[in-house]
């Protein structure tokens, strides 16, 4: 069995774990980050990609509102490559709670969240898709963030400072001696290899899986799991983030992302963070509700659905998951008799940096490291790891720099063989067993209208050509990839997407008989939830 030694072990490569890896590295503490699946495969990938202005929380959670406002400002300044500073609107339509509307500007002022009332004509001129039944509109500082690029950029800088990372490595058990975790026993879920990790300090940043990880050391964290589904539209419906001006509820936020928009979300209590997936019923519920705000949502074309599970730290009995604090939880397990164990979970994408800072402060106090946090002031360098998640990047680069022999393997999103090769070369040890899935996560492959029907097979062929897969493995990976994408497609199959699904099945089953042959390479519960790369992205 391999044994790895590290001063600090971080479990979970969502935004928080990635931020923590960077924060510690900048303080001179390189760490090892392990992840049971892939980067952002939990809630960090399965969300709107909304950079909250804080306005959504002014009525329910003033502290969260102020954190969002402050962190939003920091990210806009220090990580501009990950942010589209769109601005946002809060709008109410006939029938919405008038009292909530009336209270809103005052509540924003009380949280120092900038908010400006708009006359209805101005609002409709800004966003022509808004309903004719508009009754109120306010401008706020919401924006869009590419969570995948954000995490990869954090990881990339940390790696450059001596940190390291392993994907597909799941913590299985922990050995505790004299009030300390002395060993974390892990398994590579793709190879079955057992890996022993010895660390001075263990940081649990496993998001919705944090309670499970804590339990490996005998610690208990009360958590609730709230699944939210979202829909991606084929076209960008609005220039800005558009929020329904009402008590936070289902289907009340539309976030632009490159050439598409993301609509959601719902909130359904689930028993476990594993295996969630969007459903037909939820897709319909989102559209039925949101069209009051934007009637075009009834007619527009959707390209995909996805779901994520929010980790909510339970503070007692709660009926509505949205009433549980979205603020984060930082737990020093010294109280549980575990001196070298810290959990950081909950929170929001917008506050990931602050969460990392607070957890790193506590970690450094335990390690006796005096270096202060630098992420509040130092820019996050753009990395090459994250660059291919950006919508529109593929076509631009292909046009600018293609060589004669380069081929466009994904025509929907213009991803060339050269781009695939650079992802293969750069992901190196992070490839895991399924190279195709790793490529799908790091690029736009499989995210366009063909739903992977063409590009999946073409990239598979290329992986065979390069010797990255052999035997039946490539076909098994293709089937895994297809099933993974199917989770998102199956809830929105009417109109043109249904035609695409018809074609895809004609190719894969009608022509190639892929329903026979090897089963998918991993039965993946796998981030069931997460689309990982910010869609459309």
């Amino acid at each position, binding site marked *: 069995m391999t044994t790895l030694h590290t001063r600090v072990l971080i479990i979970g490569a969502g935004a928080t774990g990635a931020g923590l890896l960077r924060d510690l590295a900048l303080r001179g503490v390189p760490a090892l980050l392990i992840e049971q699946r892939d980067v952002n495969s939990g809630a960090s990938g399965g969300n709107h990609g909304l950079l909250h202005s804080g306005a959504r929380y002014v009525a329910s959670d003033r502290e969260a509102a102020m954190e969002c406002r402050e962190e939003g400002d920091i990210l806009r300044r220090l990580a501009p490559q990950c942010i589209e500073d769109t601005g946002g609107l809060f709008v109410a339509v006939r029938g919405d709670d008038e009292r909530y509307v009336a209270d809103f500007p005052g509540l924003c002022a009380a949280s120092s969240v900038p908010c400006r009332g708009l006359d209805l004509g101005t609002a409709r001129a800004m966003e022509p898709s808004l309903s004719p039944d508009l009754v109120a509109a306010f401008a706020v500082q919401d924006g869009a963030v590419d969570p995948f690029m954000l995490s990869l950029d954090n990881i990339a800088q940390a790696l450059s400072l001596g940190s390291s990372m392993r994907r597909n490595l799941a913590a299985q058990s922990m050995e505790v001696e004299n009030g300390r975790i002395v060993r974390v026993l892990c398994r590579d879920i793709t190879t079955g290899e057992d890996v022993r990790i010895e660390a001075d300090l263990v940081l649990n940043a496993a998001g919705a899986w944090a309670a499970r990880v804590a339990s490996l050391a005998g610690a208990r964290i009360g958590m609730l799991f709230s699944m939210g589904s979202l829909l991606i539209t084929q076209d960008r419906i609005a220039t800005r983030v558009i929020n329904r001006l009402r008590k936070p509820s289902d289907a009340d936020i539309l976030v632009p992302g490159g050439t598409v928009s993301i609509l959601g979300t719902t909130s359904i209590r689930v028993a476990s963070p594993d295996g969630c*997936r969007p*459903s*037909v*019923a939820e897709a*319909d519920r989102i*559209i039925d509700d949101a069209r009051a705000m934007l009637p075009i949502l009834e007619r527009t074309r959707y390209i995909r659905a996805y779901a994520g599970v929010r980790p909510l730290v339970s503070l007692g009995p709660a009926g509505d998951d949205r009433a549980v604090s979205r603020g984060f939880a930082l737990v020093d397990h010294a109280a549980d008799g575990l001196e070298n164990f810290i959990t950081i979970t909950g929170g929001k994408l917008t506050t990931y940096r602050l969460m990392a800072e607070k957890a790193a402060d506590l970690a450094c106090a335990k390690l006796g490291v005096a270096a202060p946090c630098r992420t509040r002031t130092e820019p996050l360098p753009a990395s090459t790891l994250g660059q291919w998640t950006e919508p529109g990047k593929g076509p631009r680069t292909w046009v600018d720099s293609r060589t*004669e*022999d380069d*081929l*466009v*393997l994904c025509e929907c999103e213009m991803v060339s063989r050269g781009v695939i090769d650079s992802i293969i070369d750069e992901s190196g040890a992070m490839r895991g067993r399924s190279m195709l899935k790793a490529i799908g996560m790091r690029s736009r492959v499989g995210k366009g209208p063909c739903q992977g029907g*063409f590009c999946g*097979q*073409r990239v*598979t*062929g*290329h992986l*065979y*050509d390069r010797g990255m*897969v*052999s*035997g*039946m493995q*490539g*076909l098994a990976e293709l*089937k895994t990839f*297809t*099933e993974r994408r*199917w989770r998102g497609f*199956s809830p929105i*199959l*009417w*109109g043109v997407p*249904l*035609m695409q*699904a*018809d*074609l895809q*099945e*004609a*190719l*894969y*089953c*009608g*022509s*190639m*008989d*892929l*329903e*026979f*042959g090897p089963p*998918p390479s991993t039965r993946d519960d796998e981030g069931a939830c997460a689309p990982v790369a910010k869609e459309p992205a």
Partner: protein
Amino acid sequence: MNTYDVMVIGSGFAGMAASLFAAKRGLSVAQAGGTGGIDFSTGFIDLMAVHPVAGQRVWEDPYAALAALRRDLPLHPYAHVTDDEIAAALGEFAAFLGDNGLCYTGRPGRNTLTLTSAGTVKPTYLLPCSAWGGVEALEAKAPTLLVDFHGLKGISARQIAEVRADWPELRTARVRFPGMGGELYPEHMAWSMADQARRIELAEAVRPLLGDARFVGFPAIFGMTDTMAVVRHMEELLGRRVFEIPTLPPSIAGPRLRAAFDRGLPVLGVRTYTQKLVSAAEVSDGLFHFTAGSGSTAVRIAARGAVLASGRFFGKGLKADRHAVREAVFDLPVSQPGKREDWHRAEFFDPRGHGINQAGLETDAALRPLGADGRPFHPRLHAAGAILAHQDWMRMKCGAGLAIATACKAVRDLNQNL
């Protein structure tokens, strides 16, 4: 305005077959349709191979499979046609293709396992003669060289060789296609292979790689119109048996079929309106009046009878909104699962197939689609091909065969009523 005996709606396998059969029976025929399934065809003509799909039982004898199918699934459209009718229809169809430069072959009464571009093998019934060498090579596991090309995507010889671990003497090579660089398209390559000089150059590129190979396989690029002449010339140049494997669409297989019909149907007097979807239909004075195409190029066509062969969703014969599936031309009732949750299964490759694939038109025994009252919508409106309910051509491996057989049946029964 001319009044035709038959209007054929659709230009996939079923539409092409209906036009062919109707014209051969002396009927005047108009045909309209967009680009559809045939353009994405592999060129293989499946008859029937898998039943029950949930058990993934593969049949070598398609007629035995049909007997089991008719017994187990009496609503399947194959229940309305006899084995003799199917065999006669396939024979007539293949003969027509042969007359128009597209040679087809197969084993009477037996499915043949054939190689796909993914490296899998699939059972089919009739296949282009240019692919037959691949069948022999596969069956004998003979020493074979599989060639692919720099710049041609959608087929990887190495993938095929890796997947076919049961064929150790399958070797691969990637060569440059003579006279072309950058990204290559099968149709361009196929046209260029009409030039004998190009074949000689290609043979020269491949010859040093032959080794002990007895067969040489290529992506399907050997000409648009007289493929077997190109294959034979390549065999002569290489001194080896040569065969083609269809690439992922856009492959050459679809355009070859389309070209064969474009040549052969007008000779039989069929009036074809290509790239025009039928957008409206009315019935008055005992005649059908169709509008094909849209805007200033729309045409009006009158006919005494019609064959609806407009396909499924990809062919635009069926369309769906968030709530229901509808038939696109007449708004005929569509048999379908009750709610959208039941349209698709949780797993794409679920062997049972998706519920929506069984959706389609209910018909009487003469393949006349039923109206809302459960009776034939019109005495001279018939339906053929994938739009019919209670079949899953993709999983049962019966796409082209079902299209051709039901087109033949529809035309015959329509002819009796004209």
